């Protein structure tokens, strides 16, 4: 299993044609119950910082994505993911494997 996330930071340059829009929408849907203040979610949003999601809830969201896309997102990969955009990239990459 490859855990390389090197292309995760290229997210910004791909914003115009919004690749992974379906993944982004799914993440927003899974984040909703943990976003009582209805903070605006963008790809640049820090999941634990800007969106104030605690570590337990992050893993609930991860499991939701794993089941929806039939992928495995290992725990050590999750600790490298800071923003919503990085999570979109990781899911894209794993789903393509």
């Amino acid at each position, binding site marked *: *299993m490859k*855990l390389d996330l090197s292309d995760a930071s290229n997210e910004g340059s791909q914003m115009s044609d919004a690749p992974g829009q379906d993944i982004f929408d799914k993440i927003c849907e899974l984040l909703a119950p943990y976003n009582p203040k209805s903070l605006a979610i963008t790809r640049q949003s820090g999941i634990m910082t800007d969106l104030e999601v*605690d*570590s*337990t*809830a992050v*893993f*609930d969201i*991860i*499991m939701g994505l*794993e089941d929806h896309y*039939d*992928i*495995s997102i*290992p*725990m*050590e*990969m999750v*600790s490298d993911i800071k923003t919503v955009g990085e999570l979109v990239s990781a899911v894209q990459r794993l789903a393509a494997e």
Partner: protein
Amino acid sequence: MDIFDKFSSLQFRSDLVQRLGVDPFGVKFDRILNASQGLIGNREILLAGTNNYLGLTFDPDCMDAAIAAINKHGTGTTGSRIANGSYEEHVDLENALAAHTGMASAIVFSTGYQTNLAAIATLAGPKDVLFIDADSHACIIDGCRLSAAPTIRFRHNSPADLDKRLTRQGEIKDGIALVVIEGMYSMFGDKAPIAEFVEVCARHGAYLYIDEAHSFGIFGETGCGLAQAEGVLDKVDFISGTFSKSLASIGGFCLSRHKNFEITRKAMRAYMFTASPTPSNIAAARAALDKIASMPNLRTALAERAAQLHSGLKALGFDLCAGAGPIIAIRRPNEVLAATEWNWLLENGLYVNLAVPPGTPQSSSLLRISLSASHTKEDIERIISIFTKMKSNSGALMAKAQSVLQAGTQ
């Protein structure tokens, strides 16, 4: 930039609960009178949050064994077993644990936390894959982090979800799957369906590791834990546990049905590079193991008290996280109210645990009770009457929580 800036949000939450009175995470007892009573100042407190499930910390035989060990070997071992040698008591306790559980190999550690840290980090190599329950204890998660293996979480207590994730993983080239679960979970007190996990692991050829920290000594015909209670002890690859709960001491153990587990003594860093358990700790745990084997009445008494308290709290309308058992967790609506109630309980002579996110599943705020075989029926009646009184004071407690919350956010 200050080195402590990163703790600012933690500091804010900590300051908030301090305003309620005593810091729930920094209680100081002036004296422990026995397994169920302590003193804060000169106030007597009923202890219902110590994980002292069998009440053996004041058992005369356990105390005598610890004192005799100090007289024989002194207070500390001052080194690791690899570098500085073992004492005969270390080896004797390992032999006794293996014999009592029918396992091929037993290794003791200096704390329960270090046990899972050492064993999991070492057993799973870079080509292996770890599968852990979503509600795993911090020491399991830290063991996974220290290991070189990818770690996949499955839904709490769901053998079906584990099955799905093992299937998704498929064949692991040059490696194995190691599944880690707990027997009874420390926060909610809910139990794993162990026989079903054994079946799923067998079908996928995965190894199974069960942390029975809160269930060893308490369940099973001879107290070997929930795997024994479900009749599958001999099919579990690894069982870990702690000396700091039913075994009335401090330290931990890992047992395996595989004789080759012995080689990991020379590979587990948290075993090799730390001082071995003190003579008195080992002697107390050894004496407590004898009690676990010979006194099933302790388990019966604990189960009776648990049923009594569970039905009493349920009758009061409290939302309880699991069925009757030695851990009874009451779900509260939020952290500040839970902390306010926790303080009120202590003022009224009852010590329980306050458990708040992120240390709890489902971001719950809990008043957590752990019972002891040393609690009497009257102790349980007293706990129920204190909670009855708390319930009748709910308006005042909610107002206090509200005012602290407002003062904190202004």
